[in-house]
């Protein structure tokens, strides 16, 4: 039996031994010839013997071997004699063979050969004897007999050599087997036997390590030779065998070449059908020839019996091929493994996806799992999650569920979905408590809770981990993070204890420096700056240049400030701002130093510090803020012109770059500096009157530092200059001019030319003017061109407001949710929250809207028109519920407490009047209409018109 790797994945037909195939061919010859041999002329006792013989041979032909045996034995027992008895002895042996009684078959063939050593079937008998030896397990004896048959030559030679080679291969003698087979194929692959030999040779070469030769043979058997292959399943088996040999040897390209020659089941069936048809045509041709040439009748009939046996064999194979398990999943899995070996994961993804085309494919679970793992390796977190989710849904108790949960959890973390990730880790712990991934799952769950600032849960989970896996892979980190969890929860005493115990347990641990720093931070939290200074000094001396050193220096400086040692603190802050590893610490230290310098009035040092910072960290996100402070320091130093020049130079560098949206901040600051008159120079003598001040012209000042002629004439530059002028107008209290300049920008400059900040401002201005179509275009351009800008909440909020105005509350709600989820709603939280409440109200979800409105109304920082509108809408909520008295209280609160917000006040009066009407209190209603109509400030509002018309309707009553 040929050894085929991964046999469990392959259909049974693959397991056919090459020897079996050879043996079957030999046996077929033996059987059929026996059946068709020239009729025996019974010598005695006459007619009866002939009749017995005919019946026996008919039974033989029909495959009824017990009946054939009975008849043939009867022939022997009645003492029939003559040359025709040769056929009886041969047929008897053949019948035993076919009856699967090899011992009796062996004896009968030996008897035949003893009686007829030169008999017409002697060669066949020798071949059959070799076969019986195989069946009896005597492989050495069989090999000797096959060799004898081969030596004899004749028509059985190729079969004998094939069988001998198969035995040699099975016995591990690949070299000898290969030599024999090479001899068979040397004359070219023209006969089915030589093709069979090539198949076996390919298998021998593959097993022998001669993979390239085997692949060459396999390649030769493709194309035109395919119709000569007796059993295409064997060809597939060989392709698998050679591919596997390459795969195991790490030769992936060659493995793919071999796997590429595996035929699909439908192709195998088609090939076999074509072969059967070809054999049938040959059969018919032989019959025609026999009629035309009677002298060749016996020869052609013999040939046809061979063909018939081959057809039977082919039909059997066809049946097997039809029934056999589909090899496609096994093939795809191997191809995917080879592609993975080549590092080509995208290709492996396609292979597994192809297996998922049929929803009920038996390999679906494995394919889904492998696909999910591949997406994870490719860093395609969303795809990984989607596929593994399907895997879990469809195969909830699959063997790889634990790995799937772990992978899904880690990928969810990558997508910043900690809550879903935690659910996966929780499921892993609950459903697969014996999983080898348990430790990792537990640790990641704790980390997830930690990242969500759920320190109590995180702490609990780290404890569980440490209890169960005290010496686990993550034990050190878990111990350290436990202390950190206390620290971030503000539990400094247990945090300190944790850090100290970590230090003891891991004196050379990864987090020792950080633990020492955190201990100092605990003292800082406890209000012990002297201790902090001591610990930080020790830390700096011990660890020096370490990634945490920036944090330590700033902590040290904070303690010195607390001890009022500001000079030393400034020096440490500045050192920290230079060496800190994170942008946040750089920012903190830089501006903490600036604060102390301001306190000491050292504007020149402040300016120097920011100059150094701007030069040293040109890509730091605090660059613009530093420019701002540098300009401010210069102005405070009494050098406003220098400050303006500095700002002008920086603006010049970025003004035509659409991606630099910080330019607007500098323009705003320049406008501010230009808006103020220069300070008169100090006079030496108090008695000397100051020189007459020239009137300050802010616009001229701005034009000096922002002269359009100094910049390229592009739409963006024009827009930015308009913006600066608008800012100046706003700062000099020319609000109409400021608005007009903004309007001009909206009208003259196409959205595609503007940077993020101006897009946001123009869009808001357009919305304020009620031009929702144009505003929508600007918001969409902001989203499209600046998907990572900080100002995206402008766009989402604006689009939400437009949707509300257009009566599309569901769309609005979605936009407001995006403003929070995607853009963080840093600037527009108030508008977004109120918008959300309005959308909910429009959707009829009053109960959902109410707490949101209460939140707006209660947030002190948002106090203003939003508060007034929230209060008004709270009244609407109650009115909708039928609580008119309650609603009235809210409406009255609006026009009493928020008189500045005319629009809300007018609406409140109107709604209060309407409530009174509903309450059947027309006098109170009329009083409210009258009050609304009488307010001159509200006269321009449409609500006043409504009130007046209702008063007119009321008067006849």
């Amino acid at each position: 039996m040929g050894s085929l790797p991964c046999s469990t994945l392959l259909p049974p037909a693959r397991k056919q031994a090459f020897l079996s195939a050879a043996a079957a061919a030999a046996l077929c010859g033996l059987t059929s010839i026996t059946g068709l041999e020239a009729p025996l002329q019974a010598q005695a006792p006459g007619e009866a013997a002939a009749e017995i013989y005919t019946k026996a041979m008919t039974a033989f032909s029909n495959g009824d071997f017990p009946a054939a045996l009975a008849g043939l034995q009867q022939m022997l027992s009645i003492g029939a004699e003559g040359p025709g008895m040769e056929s009886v002895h041969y047929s008897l042996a053949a019948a035993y063979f076919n009856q699967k009684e090899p011992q009796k078959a062996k004896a009968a063939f030996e008897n035949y050969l003893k009686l007829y050593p030169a008999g017409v079937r002697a060669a066949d008998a020798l071949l059959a004897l070799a076969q019986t030896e195989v069946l009896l397990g005597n492989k050495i004896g069989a090999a000797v007999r096959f060799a004898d048959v081969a030596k004899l030559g004749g028509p059985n030679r190729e079969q004998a050599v094939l069988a001998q080679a198969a035995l040699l291969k099975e016995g591990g003698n690949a070299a000898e087997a290969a030599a024999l087979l090479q001899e068979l194929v040397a004359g070219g692959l023209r006969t089915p036997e030589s093709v069979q030999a090539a198949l076996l040779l390919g298998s021998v070469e593959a097993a022998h390590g001669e993979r390239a030769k085997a692949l060459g043979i396999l390649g030769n058997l493709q194309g035109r030779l395919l119709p000569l292959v007796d059993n295409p399943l064997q060809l597939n088996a060989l392709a698998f065998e050679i591919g596997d040999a390459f795969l195991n040897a790490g030769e992936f390209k060659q493995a793919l070449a071999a796997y590429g020659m595996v035929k699909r089941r439908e192709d195998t069936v088609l090939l076999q059908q074509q072969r059967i048809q070809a054999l049938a045509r040959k059969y018919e041709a032989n019959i025609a020839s026999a009629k035309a040439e009677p002298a060749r009748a016996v020869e052609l009939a013999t040939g046809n019996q061979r063909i018939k046996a081959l057809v039977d064999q082919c039909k059997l194979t066809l049946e097997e091929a039809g029934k056999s398990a589909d090899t496609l999943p096994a093939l795809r899995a191997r191809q995917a493994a080879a592609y993975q070996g080549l590092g080509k994961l995208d290709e492996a993804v396609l292979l597994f996806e192809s297996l998922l085309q049929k929803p009920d494919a038996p390999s679906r679970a494995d394919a889904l799992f492998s696909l999910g793992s591949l997406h994870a390796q490719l860093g395609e977190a969303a795809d990984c999650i989607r596929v593994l989710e399907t895997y879990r849904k469809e195969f909830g108790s699959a063997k790889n569920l634990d790995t799937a949960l772990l992978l899904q959890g880690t990928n969810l973390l990558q997508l910043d979905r900690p809550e879903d990730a935690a659910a996966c880790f929780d499921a892993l712990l609950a459903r697969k408590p014996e999983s080898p991934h348990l430790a990792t799952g537990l640790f990641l769950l704790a980390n997830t809770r930690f990242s969500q600032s759920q320190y109590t849960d995180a702490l609990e989970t780290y404890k569980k981990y440490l209890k169960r896996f005290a010496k686990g892979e993550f034990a050190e980190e878990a111990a350290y993070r436990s202390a950190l969890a206390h620290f971030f929860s503000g539990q400094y005493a247990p945090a300190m204890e944790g850090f100290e115990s970590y230090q003891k347990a891991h004196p050379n641990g990864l987090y020792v420096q950080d633990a020492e720093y955190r201990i100092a931070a605990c003292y800082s939290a406890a209000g012990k700056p002297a201790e902090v200074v001591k610990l930080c000094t020790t830390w700096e001396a011990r660890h020096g240049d370490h990634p945490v050193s920036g944090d330590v220096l700033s902590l040290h400086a904070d303690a010195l400030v607390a001890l009022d040692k500001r000079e030393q603190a400034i020096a440490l802050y500045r050192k920290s701002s230079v060496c800190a590893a994170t942008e946040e610490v750089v920012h903190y230290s830089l501006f903490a130093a600036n604060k102390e310098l301001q306190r000491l009035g050292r504007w020149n040092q402040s300016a120097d510090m920011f100059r150094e910072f701007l030069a040293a960290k040109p890509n730091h996100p605090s660059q613009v803020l530093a420019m701002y402070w540098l300009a401010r320091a210069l102005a405070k130093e009494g050098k406003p012109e220098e400050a303006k020049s500095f700002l002008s130079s920086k603006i010049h560098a970025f003004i035509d770059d659409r991606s630099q949206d910080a330019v607007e901040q500098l323009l705003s600051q320049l406008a501010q500096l230009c808006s103020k008159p220069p300070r008169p120079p100090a006079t030496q003598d108090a008695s000397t009157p100051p020189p007459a001040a020239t009137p300050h012209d802010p616009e001229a000042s701005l034009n000096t530092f922002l002269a359009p002629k100094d910049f390229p004439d592009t739409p963006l530059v024009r827009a930015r200059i308009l913006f600066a002028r608008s800012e100046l107008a706003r700062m000099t209290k020319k609000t109409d001019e400021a608005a007009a300049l903004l309007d001009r920008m909206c009208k003259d400059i196409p959205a595609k030319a503007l940077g993020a900040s101006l897009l946001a401002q123009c869009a808001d201005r357009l919305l304020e003017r009620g031009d929702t179509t144009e505003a929508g275009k600007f918001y969409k351009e902001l989203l499209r061109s600046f998907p990572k800008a900080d100002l995206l909440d402008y766009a989402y909020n604006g689009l939400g407001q437009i949707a509300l105005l257009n009566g599309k509350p569901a769309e609005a709600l979605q936009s407001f949710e995006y403003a929070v989820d995607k853009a963080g709603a840093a600037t527009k939280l108030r508008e977004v929250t109120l918008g959300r409440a309005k959308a909910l109200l429009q959707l009829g979800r009053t109960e959902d809207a109410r707490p949101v409105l209460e939140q707006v109304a209660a947030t002190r920082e948002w106090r203003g028109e939003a508060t007034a509108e929230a209060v008004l809408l709270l009244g609407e909520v109650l009115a909708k519920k039928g609580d008119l008295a309650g609603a009235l209280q809210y409406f009255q609160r609006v026009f009493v407490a928020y008189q500045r917000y005319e629009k809300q006040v007018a609406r409140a009066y109107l709604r209060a009047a309407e409530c009174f009407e509903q309450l059947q209190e027309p006098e109170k209603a009329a009083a409210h209409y009258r009050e609304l109509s009488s307010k001159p400030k509200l006269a321009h509002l449409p609500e006043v018109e409504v009130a007046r018309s209702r008063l007119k309707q009321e008067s006849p009553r």
Partner: protein
Amino acid sequence: MKKLLPLLGPALLLIASPFSGHAQTVQLKDGKVLFAKEMRREGNFLFLKVSTPNGAVTDELVQLPQLERIDFGELPALVEARQLAQAGDAKGVLEITSQPAVFFRTYADLPGSLWPDVMRLRLAALAVAGTSEMLSELQKSWLPTGDPELDTAFRLIVAGQNDPAGARTAWKALAQPGAGTLAAGISWLETGQAALKAKQWREAVRAFLSVEVFVPQQRLLLPKALLGAATAFKEKGDHGKAAAFVHEIGADFPGTPEAAAAADLLK
């Protein structure tokens, strides 16, 4: 490159045989086997010059209904064409198979004809390197091969020329994951090119890699597919993968126009 020879009608007396010097084995239904030194077809008859065992050459006339099969043996031009196909040389394949195509068209309906074998090579080559002139010639001279895979590929190639909208629909239908036909391979190539034009890099990568994965035996399609994948990866910003494909094209298909284009891609 030589032009495709004009095809002659079935009444051809004797055409330039790519088998000069090779005998063809003609098997008859009555079991008779003839070794033809020369062969020509006229309607339903084959006129043969047959070698006899004593070395003489006789004329034989065979009626086609008597014919079992013609064994044309291994044709050197086809052996070479397969080698060229292995190297991805589509133009070379078209050139070397032009005469065999003309020859075997005459015998396309006879058992044993190598018409399908020749067209298997030519259709793939035409799909990647066919000029509109060649495709018009193909359409004029086409005879069904009896192999549904090849006949579908022919219709697809011709549709690409005559009915682009219909072809696009067909590409979509044929480019199914796992499909292993020439027509599927052509469809992936075309959908990949369309995705490249539409700057849909991920879709382009998937289409081009499908050629590599599901129809690796169609070597003639591979250089274009790999170049497409390299381009799409580059545009996606995955320069490592793009470089790996460029290297692969250079190593596996040197001398092809795609190898040169791939080398330029990373410059």
